[in-house]
């Protein structure tokens, strides 16, 4: 018996874990586990009470408590509201706290909810027939409403609500008003009292449904109008199901010897004689029903039951007792049923016993359908367990299956997470969302009352990888990375000064290979791993060069480490597909590519790791993290500020060095200044500090020599001064010449000796002859020092890694493999990952399959992309082998003008180009990205050849681009497709063009911000200045810092100059001008430089006041009549910038969720579905300047189930007055308390009610409040006097 109880407990636990794990029960109570042991007894007692209370079924029963956190955990939307598109700005921080800046310029925007977002808005009905979709205006139906820039949920015409029909008890959520044929209210969650679910008993079955539905179902049954509605609102779904299985049953003997087996309630409806515990075949009942050898399955029960001749089910099938009259007399106690001891298998596959138990492994099923030989009848206990991959799974268990290694950013391209379910002996497959937008998580155990039970449970949940990537662009995002669901930090520590961290998804997302729109964004995401490692050389002490910094970047580990980062960002870089086929989509310069060993490791990832699965993480936090979305339209000042300020700090160090170099220049060493230009960043800082130290040493020496002069020791002092000056000059010359430390020392000593000699000659304190041995010694030392001249800087190497979107391998030999595994159905993503020639055919048809395109054996044919070319340029000399690009009408094209051009291919192809004729694999540049497409468009800017020539480069104005394209089968165009052009060569008479600024012109800065770091981007290398007045360039007072070098713009908009501008006023106006060719200064050709003739008028504004929260709603307690309440959290803000973004949290300011409707408007709205109780909500609003304000609001949602009370009754004359404790509607009759509301006479609404009475009569008064709470009987009965 104890054993049985344990089994029962296990059953219940499984049942309940299904509630917890499977979340479909919305109203399960918090304390289900604790209550389960009592449910049987309570249910029995309740059953008896129900029968007794049948006359007054409307009694009020206390509700259960609200959703438990676990239920809430699983009930929550599986989709995070993902956020901002990848931006430029900081993508991570190196181990020295310096930002790693992505130089791609983009704008921070929300992830688009629609692929068509430019000028888009909510459309009521699109031209394609879709309702309430975000589309561009032209795609919106002519007669449809359109709200530009609006979320559909926030528009009146696409608002969701509850469509309901009280009479049938039907309540449907999230319905458009126009689609509702019945009543509609603006509550998408249908939080209405009548929508409450309860347990409806229909004979031996139960349904968890509304009262209205229960009435329909009850009267719809054959019982007809005699039926009694048995609806119990206090039971949850589990209790309801249990109740159905433990109802008192018996034989209901009808007139004429007929008999129906069922519940007592049913029997009352049939108006029969109920015999509890008896079967219809009981001899004592004298019915016409007889024993048979037929068996049946019974709805809602697991077992096989005997069937009598009247069609009633009897006891559990037991072939040994088919002819035993005692077995057909009464209901047999559970412990006396056959197979009660089979706690392992639930009597699965028993020929003789039908005591099935679906949780233990058996359930009633047709023997003939399953070809099972059963002793008696047609049914048996089917084995509900499943075998998969050598493991046995119980009915209801689910587990995760993967295509390869998962986690740590190692998920392979084309892979998918799969959830398998064992359902009554059949293994079902549920593919998680493709492109790894969902991951399969699994838990193997669960806890019931402190005891751990084994039960494998899997779920497909949203993959939060977008949030992980986005964290890199958020202030403090990296710190939050590891706390954020599905995120991890990819630590890159390749070399001593090349180490940084980036937040990536544990399970990187997949990208579409064929959709150009997503390939573009894939390019940006993968591009986050485009990094340069600067290998710095330094001179050895006595000659030669050695690597000072980042030597390891020259090893294969660089490619491996960077490729790991690249892969972790998504389908990027060198990675394998589900068949383990490797495809290389990265580029490394100045360092080895991945070796065979590294590639073998990647290939091994295509084999699943036995026992590996994604663990269930904290889902609550996941939601919170998912709510932390980026800022649509936010220029990203907050983040940029940090980045730029940090960047500026670095540059300030550089500025220090520049100052020293300028001092040397002023001292007459102008010929060497150019070589002193430092590298930016930490490396520049290091070398600068060394220089600064040397400078300070010299200054110390100089001041130490000064007093000697005043002491009358002129010759000695002069010699010392000369030595000091000579030493200084020697060091500076050595520095400018790039001598090694040893050379510098010799040069310094030589310089000092020479200084002594020159001072002696000039001051006459010694030998006045110049050419003394000392002079020659000095000269010798100087000449020797020259030998140690080491141009090590020239050896500095930029090791670069380019991370590209992953592209499938050429060919289509693996396509068919996608169709092989029925438990892993093929998809477009999976199919196309197997080969560039693979395509999914018969899409939507029964024979949908992955198939290779036919190989025509021909290479792609190239042509110019007519119509796509820069303004004022044209294609010319078009032949089969190429074309040229000229200015309109002929001639060379302007330098520093964006050149847009493209080629088209007659089939899908990848195209590359280079300035020299090389193999396809060796070419440096992708023509329009590395994906397979028809139109290959690119943009770049060509510099003025004379600018290169002036710096010693061998540049000419004639340019030839060699293009090669490769189709899906690897066929390349023969030879090279050549694009010829020429660039106008100097003399350059044009000033630079300022292409962009950051922040943008007329931007708003923080209210309390006193200065702002501003960057400007120019089309050519320039120096820039600014002033508060519109002056000529030369007259402008403030120089900007321009650290880019020729040919290496640090921003895709051009060369960057930056400075910190004061922002003291409400409107700050600056005039900015630039001057090109800064290198000409070093060549004494400054007059050839071209300044801007007109200033860029650049404005930064400050808000009138800081952003403030004006009010928050709900602001006070309120009552409701439902357990859950739909509320709108509303926040009004003022002041601040143009964009206000508000976030909220129920826990703290640390885990904020961005509100649904926020941004451009000043009232921010978040729909919430909240249980009754106290809510404290943390709210933070910030604007695009980074200013923010925080506030909290606390209120109570009071679930009002109390009925209005009568506070006072009195009579004045014939008028009776009644005062209620709360506003109420009252009615009365003079016949008694049992009357329907509609039969009462109205007494009015409000607190005070009055009626005219007749003396001696008794008035039965009933009052109900605004929520319909009324007593089952009377509120009061009063005698009139």
């Amino acid at each position, binding site marked *: 018996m104890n054993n049985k109880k344990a089994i029962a407990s296990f059953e219940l636990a499984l049942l309940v874990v*299904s*509630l917890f794990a*499977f*979340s*479909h029960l919305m109203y399960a109570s918090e304390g289900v586990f604790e209550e389960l042991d009592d449910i049987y007894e309570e249910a029995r007692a309740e059953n008896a009470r129900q029968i007794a209370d049948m006359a007054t079924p409307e009694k009020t029963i206390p509700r259960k408590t609200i959703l438990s956190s676990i239920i809430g955990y*699983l*009930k*929550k*939307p*599986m*989709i995070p509201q993902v956020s901002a598109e990848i931006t430029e700005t900081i993508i991570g921080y190196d181990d020295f706290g310096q930002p790693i800046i992505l130089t791609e310029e983009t704008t921070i925007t929300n*992830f688009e*909810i*629609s692929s068509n977002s430019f000028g888009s808005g909510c459309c009521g009905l*699109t031209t394609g027939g*879709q*309702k309430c*979709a975000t589309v561009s205006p032209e795609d919106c139906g002519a007669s449809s409403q359109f709200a530009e820039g609006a979320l*559909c*949920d926030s528009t009146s015409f696409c608002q969701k609500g509850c*469509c309901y*029909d009280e009479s*049938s008890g*039907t309540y*449907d*959520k*999230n*319905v*458009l008003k126009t*689609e*509702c044929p*019945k009543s509609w209210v603006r509550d*998408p969650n249908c939080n209405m009292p009548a929508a409450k679910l309860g347990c409806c008993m*229909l004979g031996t079955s139960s349904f968890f*449904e509304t009262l209205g539905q229960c009435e329909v*179902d009850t009267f*719809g049954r054959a019982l007809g109008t005699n039926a009694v509605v048995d609806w119990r609102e206090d039971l949850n779904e589990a209790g309801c199901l249990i109740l159905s299985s433990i109802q008192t049953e018996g034989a209901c003997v009808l007139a004429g010897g007929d008999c129906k087996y069922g519940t007592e309630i049913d029997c009352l409806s049939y108006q029969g004689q109920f015999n509890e515990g008896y079967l219809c075949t009981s001899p004592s009942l004298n019915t016409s029903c007889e024993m048979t050898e037929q068996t049946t*399955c019974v709805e*809602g029960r697991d077992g096989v039951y005997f069937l009598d001749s009247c069609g009633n089910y009897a006891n559990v099938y037991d072939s040994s007792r088919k002819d035993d009259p005692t077995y057909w007399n009464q209901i047999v106690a559970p412990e006396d049923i056959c197979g009660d001891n089979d706690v392992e298998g639930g009597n699965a596959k028993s020929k003789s016993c039908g005591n099935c138990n679906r949780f233990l492994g058996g*359930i009633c099923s047709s023997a003939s359908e399953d070809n099972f030989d059963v002793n008696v009848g047609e049914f048996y206990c089917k084995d509900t367990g499943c075998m998969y991959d050598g493991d046995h799974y119980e*009915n*209801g268990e689910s587990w995760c299956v993967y295509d390869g290694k998962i986690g740590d950013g190692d998920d392979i391209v084309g892979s998918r997470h799969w959830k398998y379910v064992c359902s009554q002996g059949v293994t*079902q497959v*549920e*593919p998680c969302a*493709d492109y790894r*937008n*969902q991951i399969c998580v699994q838990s193997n155990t669960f806890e019931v009352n402190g005891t751990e039970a084994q039960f494998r449970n899997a*779920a497909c949940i*949203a993959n939060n990888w977008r949030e992980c*990537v986005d964290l890199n662009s958020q202030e403090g995002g990296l710190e939050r990375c590891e706390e954020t669901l599905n995120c991890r930090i990819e630590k890159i520590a390749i070399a001593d000064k090349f180490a940084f961290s980036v937040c990536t998804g544990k399970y990187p997302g997949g990208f579409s290979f064929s*959709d150009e729109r*997503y390939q573009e964004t*894939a390019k940006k995401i993968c591009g986050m791993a485009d990094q340069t490692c600067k290998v710095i050389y330094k001179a050895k002490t006595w000659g030669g060069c050695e690597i000072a910094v980042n030597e390891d970047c020259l090893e294969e580990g660089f490619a491996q480490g960077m490729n790991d980062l690249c892969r972790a960002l*998504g389908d990027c870089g060198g990675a394998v597909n589900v068949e383990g086929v490797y495809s290389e989509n990265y580029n490394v310069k100045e360092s080895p590519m991945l070796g065979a060993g590294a590639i073998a490791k990647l290939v091994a990832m295509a084999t699943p790791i036995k026992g590996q699965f994604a663990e269930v993480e904290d889902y609550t936090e996941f939601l919170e993290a998912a709510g932390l979305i980026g800022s649509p339209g936010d220029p990203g000042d907050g983040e940029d500020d940090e980045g730029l300020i940090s960047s500026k700090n670095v540059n300030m160090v550089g500025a220090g060095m520049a100052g020293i170099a300028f001092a040397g220049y002023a001292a007459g060493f102008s010929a060497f200044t150019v070589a002193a230009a430092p590298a930016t960043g930490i490396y520049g800082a290091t070398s600068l500090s060394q220089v600064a130290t040397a400078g300070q040493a010299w200054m110390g020496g100089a001041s130490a020599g000064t007093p000697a002069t005043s002491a009358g020791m002129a010759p000695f002092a002069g010699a010392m001064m000369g030595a000091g000056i000579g030493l200084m000059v020697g060091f500076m010359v050595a520095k400018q010449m790039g001598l090694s430390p040893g050379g510098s020392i010799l040069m310094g000593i030589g310089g000092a000796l020479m200084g002594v000699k020159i001072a002696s000659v000039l001051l006459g304190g010694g030998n006045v002859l110049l050419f003394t041995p000392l002079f020659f010694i000095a000269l010798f030392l100087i000449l020797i020092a020259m030998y140690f001249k080491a141009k090590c800087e020239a050896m500095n190497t930029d090791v670069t890694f380019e991370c590209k979107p992953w592209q499938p391998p050429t060919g289509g030999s693996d396509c068919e493999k996608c169709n092989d595994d029925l438990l892993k*159905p093929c998809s*477009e*993503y999976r199919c196309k990952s197997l080969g560039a020639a693979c395509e999914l055919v018969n899409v*939507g048809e*029964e024979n949908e399959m992955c198939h290779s395109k036919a190989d025509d054996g021909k290479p792609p044919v190239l042509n110019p992309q007519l119509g796509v070319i820069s303004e004022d340029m044209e294609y010319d000399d078009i032949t089969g082998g190429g074309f040229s690009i000229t200015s309109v009408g002929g001639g060379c094209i302007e330098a520093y003008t964006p050149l847009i051009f493209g080629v088209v291919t007659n089939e899908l192809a990848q195209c590359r180009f280079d300035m020299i004729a090389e193999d396809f694999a060796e070419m440096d540049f992708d023509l329009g990205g590395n994906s397979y497409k028809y139109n290959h468009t690119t943009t770049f800017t060509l510099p003025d050849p004379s600018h290169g020539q002036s710096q010693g480069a061998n540049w000419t104005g004639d340019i030839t681009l060699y293009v090669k394209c490769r189709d899906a089968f690897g066929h390349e165009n023969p030879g090279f497709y050549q694009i010829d052009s020429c660039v106008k060569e100097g003399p350059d008479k044009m000033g630079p063009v300022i292409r962009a600024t950051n922040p943008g012109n007329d931007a708003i800065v923080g209210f309390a911000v006193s200065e702002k770091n501003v960057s400007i981007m120019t089309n050519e290398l320039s120096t820039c200045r600014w002033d508060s007045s519109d002056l000529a360039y030369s007259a402008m007072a403030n120089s900007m810092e321009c650290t880019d070098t020729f040919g290496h713009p640090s921003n895709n908009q051009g060369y960057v100059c930056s400075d910190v501008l004061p922002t003291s006023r409400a409107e700050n106006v600056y005039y900015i001008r630039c001057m090109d060719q800064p290198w000409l200064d070093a060549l004494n050709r400054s007059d050839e430089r071209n300044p801007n003739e007109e200033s860029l008028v650049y404005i930064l504004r400050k808000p009138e006041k800081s952003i403030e929260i004006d009010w928050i709603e709900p602001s006070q307690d309120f009552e409701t009549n439902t357990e859950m309440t739909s509320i709108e959290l509303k926040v009004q803000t003022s002041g601040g910038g143009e964009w206000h973004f508000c976030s909220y949290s129920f826990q703290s300011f640390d885990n904020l969720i961005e509100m649904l409707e926020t941004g451009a408007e000043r009232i921010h709205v978040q729909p919430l579905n909240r249980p009754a109780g106290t809510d404290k909500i943390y709210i933070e609003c910030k604007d695009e300047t980074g200013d923010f304000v925080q506030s909290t609001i606390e209120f109570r949602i009071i679930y009002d189930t109390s009925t209005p009370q009568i506070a006072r009754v009195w009579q004045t004359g014939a008028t009776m007055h009644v005062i209620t404790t709360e506003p109420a509607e009252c009615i009365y009759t003079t016949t008694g308390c049992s009357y329907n509301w509609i039969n009462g006479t109205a007494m009015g609404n409000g607190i005070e009610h009055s009626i005219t009475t007749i003396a001696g009569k008794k008035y039965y008064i009933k009052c109900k409040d605004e929520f319909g709470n009324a007593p089952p009987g009377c509120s009061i009965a009063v005698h009139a006097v």
Partner: protein
Amino acid sequence: MVTEINNKRGQLTIFIIVAVVLVVAIIAAFWFIGKRTTETPANLNPKQFVQKCVRDAVENSVEKMLENGGQRMPSQAISYQGTEWNYLCYQADFYLGCYNLHPMLEFLIENEIKEDTKREVQACFDSMREDFESKGFDVSGGSTDYSIDLLPGMVEVNLKKRIDVVRGDSSQSYEDFGTKILSPIYELMRIAREVVNSESQYCHFEYNGYMLLYPDYEIRRIDYSDSKIYRLIDRRTKAEFKFAVRSCAFAPGV
């Protein structure tokens, strides 16, 4: 002499044969005419005739409803395995919960079945009338009151039409042609509603837990393209309710 005798005998035989034939013919005629005159409207069973006809029509229609997610023809659908799967909940945008396209699904299906079968129901009456008229009866009918109710375990056909069958002085009236068809469509529709409500609110329906609680039903979900294909199967009858949902769809990238 012998010849005369033989001729008389032959003549007699012929007379007898003719007489027998006449008698048989007369009896047959009387029998036949008598049979016709004894058939009255009361002997007919138009109700059974119509009910069977209507049941066939409604059963076919119920099949359509199961196949097309509660509609005669899918109104907005996705192709999967050669079948159009009707959307019951759809959101065109990414990352957002779906709109319930067909609230009050029960009424919708009832109305769809009615609209789908009303011509056939009328044809059933027409067929019955033609049949009876061919037998010499006059058949007249009143207006038709036809509706469908989905109920637990069955589809109730409410069909009221006054039919008068007259022959001579004999007449018979019929009014109620209602019938019931066993089908789990009501239960499957209820599950579909639950799926749609859950998908629209939470972008998710946990079918595995549902199957554990309600083992009589099998629910299969396939994530296809960016939609979810749902198959709700009654394990006993193998009846299958098919529909699709597009809720909180993900983009293939960013």
